C-alpha cells in the first residue's frame, strides 16, 4: 500500500509497510496513479499514452523503471506481513497506570470529559490505602518490565497532594525490592501550584503536563473557576516558575485543547511559544456533537488548513532559530517505535489500567465510570483477565477501517475509548479523529522531509 499527497510544495509518497518516505517529481506522482505491481519489463504502452501529452515518452519509461526498482527493493508497494505479530502482546504484563488521585476539581472546564472532575460518580479523594494498593498491584503485575509508569491524574491531582507525596514515597521504597523503576508523571491545571509543590514535582516527576489552552481569552472562556472567573492569570506565572526551575533532562509540556471557538488554534500555539514555552501540545476537543463548542465534520477543512498553516510557521520559526516542539508534528522517520508496538498503540486494558479513588480498575482513564468496563477492584482483589485479553486484541488488524488505512503505523488504531463512546464499539474507528490524525501525520512527515532535504542528507 502506498499513500501519496502534495503538501508544502512537495510530492510525497509513503510506502506504508516499510515506512519508506519518498519525495518524487510530478511525473512520478502522476505515474503512480497507474503504475502498480506486478510490474512489466517495460512501461505498458497505454500508461505511456495516458501521460505523453504532459511528459516526454522517454522520461515516462525511465520513471516507470525507477518505480519498479524501488518495488524490487521492497520500499515501494512492500507487502503487509505484520499480522503474525498481532498476537504478541496477549498476556503482556501491566506496565502503566493512571491513578485518579482526586475525583474533584477546582475548575469548571466546559469540555471536561470527567464531568467537572468527578466522572459522574461524586467528588472523592483517593485515600492513601488505595494508592498503596495500586503501587503493589503494579509491582506484582508488571512481570519483567522494569520501568513502570504511574500518572497522577484527576480531577485535579493537586487537591490531594499529600497523598501524591506519600504514594511516591511508598513507590520509591518498594521499587527497590522488586528491582524496578517508577516513572511518576502528573497532569495539573496549575491553580494550586506553590513553590513547595513545584519543588516536589520537579524532583520526582519525570513528566509534568500543564494544562493551558493558549491565548488568555480562549483559555478563560473554556477554563473558568468554580466561581466563574478566569484562571489564566493565576496559572501562567506558576507554570513559568515550574518550567524555569526544571532540569533540562526531564520532560514537561503545556497542553491545551482547541474547540470550534478557536479554529485558528495555530495562534494559540504561537501565543504559548511567545509566553516562553517550547514544549507544546494543543489538540482537538472530542465530545458529542450537541455541544456548541464541538468539532464536527464541517470543521475538518478549516482545521486541516490550520494544521498546514501551523506547519509552515513552524518551519519558518525553525529557520529563524526559534525552535519549539509541537507534539503532534513530532515524528522520527528512522528510529521510532518498532512495528509491533505500532500495531496497538496505547495498550489500554492490557498494559495500562486506571484506578479510581475507590480502588476500582478500568481499562483507562476514559473508561472510568462506564460500569460494563469495570475490570476489577483493588479492594476485593478481583481482576477480569478475560477483559484484559479482549483488550489485547484491539490491534489494527481487528479494526476494519484501520486494516486498510495508510496511517495505521503512525496512529495505531486511534483511541479505543473514543471509538466506544462515539461509534459504539472499541473496534470502530472514530471517523472525525481519523481525519484529523491523518492530516497531522501528513504535516509531520512533510516537515521531516523538508528538514532532511535542507540538511542535505537525502540520498
Amino acid at each position, binding site marked *: 500500500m502506498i499513500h501519496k499527497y502534495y503538501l508544502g510544495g512537495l510530492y510525497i509518497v509513503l510506502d506504508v509497510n516499510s515506512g*519508506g518516505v*519518498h519525495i518524487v*517529481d510530478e511525473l512520478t506522482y502522476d505515474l503512480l496513479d497507474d503504475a502498480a505491481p506486478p510490474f512489466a519489463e517495460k512501461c505498458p504502452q497505454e500508461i505511456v499514452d495516458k501521460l505523453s501529452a504532459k511528459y516526454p515518452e522517454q522520461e515516462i519509461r525511465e520513471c516507470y523503471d525507477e518505480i519498479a526498482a524501488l518495488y524490487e527493493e521492497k*520500499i515501494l508497494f512492500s507487502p503487509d506481513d505484520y499480522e503474525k505479530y498481532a498476537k504478541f*502482546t496477549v498476556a503482556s504484563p501491566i506496565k502503566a497506570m493512571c491513578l485518579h488521585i482526586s475525583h474533584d476539581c477546582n475548575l469548571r472546564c466546559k469540555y471536561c470529559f470527567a464531568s467537572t472532575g468527578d466522572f459522574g460518580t461524586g467528588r472523592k479523594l483517593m485515600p492513601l490505602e488505595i494508592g498503596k494498593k495500586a503501587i503493589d498491584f503494579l509491582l506484582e503485575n508488571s512481570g519483567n518490565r522494569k520501568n513502570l509508569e504511574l500518572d497522577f491524574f484527576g480531577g485535579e491531582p493537586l487537591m490531594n497532594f499529600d497523598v501524591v507525596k506519600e504514594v511516591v514515597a511508598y513507590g520509591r521504597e518498594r521499587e527497590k525490592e522488586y528491582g524496578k523503576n517508577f516513572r511518576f508523571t502528573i497532569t495539573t491545571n496549575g491553580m494550586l501550584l506553590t513553590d513547595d509543590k513545584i519543588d516536589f514535582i520537579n524532583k520526582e516527576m519525570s513528566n509534568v503536563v500543564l494544562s493551558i489552552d493558549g491565548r488568555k481569552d480562549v483559555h478563560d472562556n473554556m477554563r473558568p473557576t468554580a466561581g466563574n472567573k478566569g484562571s489564566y492569570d493565576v496559572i501562567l506565572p506558576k507554570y513559568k516558575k515550574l518550567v524555569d526551575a526544571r532540569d533540562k533532562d526531564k520532560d514537561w509540556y503545556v497542553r491545551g485543547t482547541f474547540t470550534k471557538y478557536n479554529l485558528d488554534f495555530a495562534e494559540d500555539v504561537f501565543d504559548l511559544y511567545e509566553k516562553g514555552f517550547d514544549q507544546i501540545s494543543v489538540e482537538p476537543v472530542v465530545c458529542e456533537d450537541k455541544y456548541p463548542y464541538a468539532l464536527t465534520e464541517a470543521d475538518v477543512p478549516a482545521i486541516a488548513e490550520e494544521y498546514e498553516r501551523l506547519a509552515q510557521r513552524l518551519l519558518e520559526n525553525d529557520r529563524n532559530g526559534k525552535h519549539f516542539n509541537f507534539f503532534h508534528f513530532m515524528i522520527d522517520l528512522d528510529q*521510532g517505535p*518498532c*512495528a509491533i508496538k505500532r500495531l496497538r498503540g496505547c495498550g489500554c486494558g492490557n498494559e495500562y489500567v486506571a484506578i479510581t479513588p475507590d480502588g476500582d480498575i478500568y481499562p483507562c482513564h476514559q473508561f472510568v465510570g462506564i460500569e460494563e468496563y469495570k475490570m476489577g477492584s483493588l479492594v476485593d482483589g478481583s481482576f477480569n483477565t478475560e477483559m484484559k485479553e479482549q483488550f489485547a486484541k484491539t490491534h489494527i488488524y481487528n479494526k476494519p477501517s484501520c486494516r486498510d488505512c495508510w496511517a495505521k503505523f503512525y496512529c495505531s488504531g486511534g483511541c479505543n475509548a473514543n471509538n466506544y463512546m462515539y461509534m459504539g464499539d472499541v473496534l470502530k474507528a472514530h471517523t472525525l479523529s481519523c481525519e484529523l490524525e491523518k492530516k497531522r501525520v501528513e504535516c509531520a512527515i512533510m516537515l521531516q522531509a523538508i528538514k*532532511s532535504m535542507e540538511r542535505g542528507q537525502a540520498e
Partner: protein
Amino acid sequence: MKHIMTINKANLKESAAKGGCGNCQASCQSACKTSCTVANQKCERDDK
C-alpha cells in the same frame, strides 16, 4: 535515481524482527492525556 528521492531508512520491517520487548512508555493518544502519536514515542529496547 532521477525522479525519486528516498529520505529515510524504511526500516519498519527490521524493527518488527527485533521489537516487541515492551520496555517503552505506554502511549495514550487521546486528546486529554499525553497527546502522543505512537510515532513520536521513543524505543527503549535494552540491546540497542
